[in-house]
């Protein structure tokens, strides 16, 4: 599948930084990439406003970052959410955030007060009906997120919908797209499931052929709807060029502990054996020196994938899913899928150790 058929989304070259505002979440989506202890049992970390200001201003100086994307955990749980948006606006930056929508009524007044700074709100949707969405996100979640979409729509706040491609959602792609379009979303971003255990992979992930059919369906939806529809970078793509903003040098992530990491997809990964994607503790180190090491890591990862693609093409003539999907390749080569360790061994970078100011 090439880019002309399938719209690649969320990957423009605007320099951006993703920041996890908190580790905690009010919902319990079983498939979630984030470590379950961090989400629900560890002490709550709420990203300190001063550190946030320091990091975004340094990131702007070092690599021209002018867009901040907030995630979590659930970012709307941050008790200073309004002050964070105010800071973004005062710094002349723009931001967006991805949310489960449960607490949107709390976040909404801040969004409306600082709407000049909020480029987009992304709402996660796990199906086109209450039954399918609430299966993962708990009773009442669908109604809450639909209310949040309506509030954005009628207040003129641009919003997009993010939906996972899994065994349960793949029969609903069109319904999800129609729902998002009718509710006024400015785009729909699908993403393939990132597997967090063998059980999740077996029960929820699509086979190679099913993924391709889902990607074709999404490409069709993208052609027939006015609303842009696309798939995030995890789709099958054997081009050896950097597949995403993190690997091309246009983005990076800061986790809820203030550590600079390669990408929000890999951060705090549930069940991970390793964290070679964690570069530095920004509570102790300035952004510039840490960012230089991050670029090295990204360069090494691009080279590693290029080598894997070339080896598989030569040996077998066909690239398997775990090399063809850039995100699966990262997960495997960064030790996030320990149950696949035997297959991954040949692709692993040396682990790095980073100490954290919180001593965790």
């Amino acid at each position, binding site marked *: 599948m090439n880019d002309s058929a399938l719209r690649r989304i969320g990957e423009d070259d605007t320099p951006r930084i993703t920041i996890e505002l908190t580790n905690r979440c009010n919902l319990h989506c079983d498939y979630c990439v984030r470590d379950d202890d961090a989400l629900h049992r560890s002490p709550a970390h709420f990203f300190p406003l001063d550190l946030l200001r320091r990091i975004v201003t340094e990131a702007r100086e070092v690599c021209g970052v002018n867009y901040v994307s907030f995630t979590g955990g659930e970012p709307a749980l941050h008790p200073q959410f309004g002050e964070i948006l105010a800071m973004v606006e005062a710094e002349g930056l723009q931001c967006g955030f991805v949310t489960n929508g449960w607490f949107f009524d709390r976040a909404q007044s801040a969004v409306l007060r600082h709407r000049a700074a909020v480029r987009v709100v992304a709402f996660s949707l796990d199906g086109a009906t209450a039954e399918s969405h609430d299966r993962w996100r708990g009773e009442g979640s*669908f*109604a809450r997120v*639909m209310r949040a*979409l*309506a*509030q954005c729509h*009628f207040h003129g706040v641009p919003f997009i919908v993010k939906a996972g491609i899994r065994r349960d959602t793949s029969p609903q792609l069109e319904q999800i797209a129609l*729902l998002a379009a*009718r509710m006024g979303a400015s785009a729909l971003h699908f993403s393939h499931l990132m597997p967090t255990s063998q059980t999740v992979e077996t029960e929820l992930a699509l086979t190679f052929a099913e993924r391709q059919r889902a990607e074709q369906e999404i490409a069709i939806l993208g052609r027939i709807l006015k609303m842009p529809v696309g798939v995030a970078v995890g789709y099958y793509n054997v081009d050896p060029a950097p597949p995403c903003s993190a690997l091309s040098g246009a983005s990076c992530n800061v986790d809820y502990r203030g550590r600079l990491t390669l990408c929000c997809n890999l951060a705090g990964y549930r069940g991970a054996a390793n964290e070679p994607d964690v570069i530095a503790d920004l509570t102790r180190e300035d952004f510039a020196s840490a960012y230089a090491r991050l670029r090295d890591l990204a360069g090494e990862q691009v080279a590693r994938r290029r080598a894997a693609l070339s080896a598989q093409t030569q040996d077998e003539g066909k690239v398997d899913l775990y090399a063809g999907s850039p995100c699966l390749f990262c997960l495997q080569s960064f030790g996030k899928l320990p149950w696949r360790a035997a297959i991954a061994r040949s692709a692993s970078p040396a682990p790095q150790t980073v100490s954290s100011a919180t001593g965790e």
Partner: protein
Amino acid sequence: MTNLSLPKPHAHVIVTDFDDGEGVLIDVQARRYYQLNETALLIWRGLEQNQPLPQIISQLTASYEVSAEQAAESVRRLLAALEDHKLIGALRQ
């Protein structure tokens, strides 16, 4: 329409209200929005709470300068529109 048998909102219809007292119905099955003005929202809330017609009418007459007849007519018109759009159960004649 008898006092005791006002239809119930359908489960696939979600309501949200705005600070100005107005609201929106989201029909997630038909994937459509419907805007409600203040009185329509008040009537909808009454239907949600299974209030009898006289209670809804007295709320309308207490909140707005309308007679009981005008309020009853507003309710009747709104119910017909809601039924028409399949947002509530069928009206009993």
